[in-house]
């Protein structure tokens, strides 16, 4: 096995440890490397926040779907075929001009994989996990989203096997847009509750 990575730099201790562990587990017959490739390919290329964006866009254009999503998100999301690992139980939370929902997992990294994919580093890291529950307003302000004092903030700590998906507010200026066009502007961060979906620029067609 090469002791150097693809760019010629020496491998770090962690890189070497993981390579050694994989080769040991394959050698012992515990792990099939092709299965590892398939697992990685799934979350790098197939499952990600584009899934959640489709759900949000549907809820924005179809009031009956939105009602279903808010009543039974697991089933309403399964309608798209988005099911499985870390999405066994999903609850959707509607953001409105009066109520802002924000999702965190203070104890580890719980996140709705089938609709958002694997969580970004900041979601799993200490600064967000520590601060979201005690200072959501300060945190949102720093992230460029100051909230008026009159808005109610609801923070959801994912301590069980229930996963939360924020249904962001539909921005003004998107009247008449179809689902596909709407889905393209929905961001991962808006579905966690740390951003709003930006209204389209005025000069856009």
């Amino acid at each position: 096995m090469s002791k150097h990575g693809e760019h010629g730099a020496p491998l770090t201790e962690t890189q070497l440890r993981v390579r050694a562990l994989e080769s040991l587990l394959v050698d012992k017959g515990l792990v099939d490397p092709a299965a590892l490739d398939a697992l990685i390919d799934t979350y790098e290329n197939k499952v990600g926040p584009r899934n959640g964006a489709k759900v949000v866009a549907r809820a924005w254009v179809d009031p009956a779907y939105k009602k279903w999503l808010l009543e039974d998100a697991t089933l309403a999301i399964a309608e798209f075929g988005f099911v499985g690992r870390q999405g066994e139980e999903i609850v959707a939370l509607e953001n409105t001009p009066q109520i802002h929902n924000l999702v965190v997992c203070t104890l580890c990294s719980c996140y709705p994989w089938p609709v958002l994919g694997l969580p970004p580093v900041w979601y799993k890291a200490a600064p967000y996990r520590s601060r979201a529950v005690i200072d959501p307003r300060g945190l949102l302000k720093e992230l460029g989203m100051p909230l008026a004092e009159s808005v109610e903030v609801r923070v959801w700590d994912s301590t069980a096997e229930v996963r939360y998906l924020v249904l962001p507010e539909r921005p003004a200026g998107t009247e008449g847009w179809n689902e596909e066009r709407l889905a393209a502007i929905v961001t991962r961060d808006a579905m966690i509750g740390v951003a709003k979906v930006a209204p389209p620029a005025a000069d856009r067609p």
Partner: protein
Amino acid sequence: MNGVHDMGGMHGLGAVEIEKNEPVFHDEWEARTFALTLASGYLGKWNLDMSRFAREQMPGPEYLATSYYEHWLYGLCKLLVDQGLVTAKELESGRREAKASEARVLRATDVPAVLRSRIAARVEDDVPAKFRPGDRVVARNIHPTGHTRLPRYARGRRGVIERDHGVFVFPDTNAIGLGKKPQHVYSVRFTARELWGPQASPRDSVFVDLWDDHLEPA
């Protein structure tokens, strides 16, 4: 356990930095660690709660100084050795002493179906609920040295049952071999002022998912 993983409400851990166009994995070792953890979990020797507990047992200073997938790597190595799939000597040397006799190895062709299947945290057992939506409760002031999903910041605090999610396995026992102990899980609403005092906004709340055994009537 009162570990550093239980971070809710701590100060001084730095600024939140959102990376633009962040890749799913930042290096190949992260991707391999992720996949090795899922594939090893498929061998059926441990449950999800045991996985979380294994990561929590990384010594605190090390946990804070390392990245997310290093926590996963620590947890995976611990489980492999603790559950007898790999010996400490094999892990150290990287050379196998004996071939494993596990029949249940994850194959690439099974991956789509496995990822689409549900891990049975919800159970159909007919367990009566101790509380109903609207009930006032207090989170128990407990400090178990094992695994718990009751975060420190909520212990001893008063809240209201917002919603009954149904009956689920109890991680606090399931993580340490004491059984599934199925019981209701509720979304419990704590006002920000109950948790953080008068500096918090009177409008805000934190919702925590808690089990019957975490709660007492208030």
